[in-house]
């Protein structure tokens, strides 16, 4: 502890204050400090999330995709079970070494803002597998496993009473107590699944948010102004593709382009970063398992909050955020843990926020709920 020379004018008060000050090293006393994820902000920034996702840089995009950059995935949907040990996205995975990362649920209420849309009806899921996902690549034998495994789940998760059913309870309304449409179920089509090799793409192996959107547009609506209004566009990158913020700020995200009305999402291969991997060994491929859980997270947020103005808590958390890294009851599988079985396939998928009871308010509906997997 340092000492200070005293002057008459502050002796009576300064001494105890100095003692206090010296006893609080490194104490921050201002509000503009940034710490880790934290950012300074002003109250005015919180007023409205609607219409904030416009990116004018997309408007003049003139895509020029040649067919030899893309491949349509095979439609095979058979379960893929690969047991450890194995090479998974560059990380050597050893049997029995799994430690499942488990999060704490945000059990605060979720709020619906009256008038904001959800995705009613059947959603079409479009996939761009960006990077080294070629199913014929000998250097990447797990590529096809990622795709078939992911599509197996997406095509079966909406069966009655299953995982997706939690989303069907979310609705849109313009007036309290009047439901004008509930969230529908997704549908997959091989025609909406493409592989884009990074080394032949004009966007390369380092991507920004803007390039994620352009990849989507190039792949699925290159010459039209508007995206499929019922579409959810996924860009799924392989482990060698770098996306700014991946693994440090997010493992995935969803967004909305107000010009084309596209609802699009990015999810990276968790094998590329420890921050996105739930466990080092999984029921299938550890990277694919964790990637699918993030895909589920982004899909359930996209359908319930497609324009970022519908369903989220007062702390800003959407339904997927509230249950991130929570699994409910788990059981051993493949050297790691699983929490959902569909058919003969074990999955590890994060839970979703299941609506409980409603309290209506002025302009909003507030719902209690819990994290659940069906």
């Amino acid at each position: 502890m340092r000492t200070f020379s005293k002057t008459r004018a502050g002796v009576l008060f300064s001494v105890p204050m100095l003692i206090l000050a010296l006893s609080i090293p490194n104490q921050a006393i201002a509000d503009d400090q940034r710490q880790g994820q934290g950012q300074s902000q002003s109250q005015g920034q919180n007023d409205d999330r609607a219409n904030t996702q416009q990116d004018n840089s997309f408007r003049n995009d003139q895509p020029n995709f040649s067919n030899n950059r893309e491949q349509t995935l095979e439609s095979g949907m058979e379960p893929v079970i690969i047991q450890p040990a194995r090479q998974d996205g560059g990380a050597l995975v050893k049997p029995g070494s799994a430690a499942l990362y488990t999060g704490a649920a945000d059990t605060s209420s979720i709020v619906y803002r009256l008038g904001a849309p959800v995705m009613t009806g059947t959603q079409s899921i479009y996939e761009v597998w960006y990077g080294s996902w070629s199913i014929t690549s000998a250097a990447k034998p797990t590529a096809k496993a990622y795709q078939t495994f992911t599509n197996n789940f997406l095509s079966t998760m909406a069966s009655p009473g299953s995982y997706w059913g939690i989303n069907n309870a979310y609705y849109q309304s313009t007036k309290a107590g009047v439901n004008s449409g509930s969230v529908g179920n997704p549908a997959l089509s091989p025609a909406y699944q493409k592989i884009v090799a990074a080394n032949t793409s004009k966007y390369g192996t380092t991507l920004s948010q803007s390039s994620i959107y352009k990849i989507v547009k190039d792949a699925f609506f290159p010459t039209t102004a508007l995206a499929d209004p019922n579409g959810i566009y996924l860009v799924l990158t392989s482990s060698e593709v770098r996306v700014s913020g991946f693994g440090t700020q997010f493992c995935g995200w969803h967004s909305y382009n107000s010009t084309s009305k596209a609802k699009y999402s990015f999810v990276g291969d968790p094998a590329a970063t420890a921050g996105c991997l739930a466990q080092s060994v999984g029921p299938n491929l550890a990277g694919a398992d964790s990637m699918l859980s993030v895909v589920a997270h982004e899909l359930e947020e996209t359908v319930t909050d497609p324009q970022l103005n519908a369903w989220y808590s007062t702390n800003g958390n959407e339904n997927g955020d509230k249950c991130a890294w929570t699994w409910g009851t788990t059981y051993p599988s493949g050297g790691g843990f699983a929490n959902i079985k569909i058919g003969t396939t074990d999955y590890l998928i994060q839970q979703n926020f299941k609506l409980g009871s409603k309290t209506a308010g002025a302009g909003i509906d507030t719902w209690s709920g819990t994290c659940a997997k069906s």
Partner: protein
Amino acid sequence: MKIQGNSHIAVLLATTLFITFPLSAHATPLVKISESSNSQTVVVSKGSKVQITLHSTYWASKKVINLEATGTPVSVPIMPGPKAPQGCQFAGTGCGSVTWSFIATKTGSASFEAGRTSCGEALKCTASQQKFKVLFKIK
């Protein structure tokens, strides 16, 4: 402004407190705590207001000992959008802050502990990011 622990900064802090709480007034001292006090012990006087602000909306209090809450935690999220700060363009990143307010009503030891398991959109926290704890000596 970030305060570093050295002598001239301590003088600045004392001066700030002197301005905030003049001798003639009997205002309740306000002690503001943030991430930089993690794992440290803070000395406060009995009756002080203690305001703890952590800069991610994913923080939740886990354990509070000998501090009297003066309201519910206040979460102030930064909403996504092109005008949001770098790293806050997406929902679920946790950008924003949570503030807890207490009064140090009893002399002796007190503590506040918070935890989080998400540190971004669908992003795990590292071990060091998961816990915040500050101890108080209340005199």
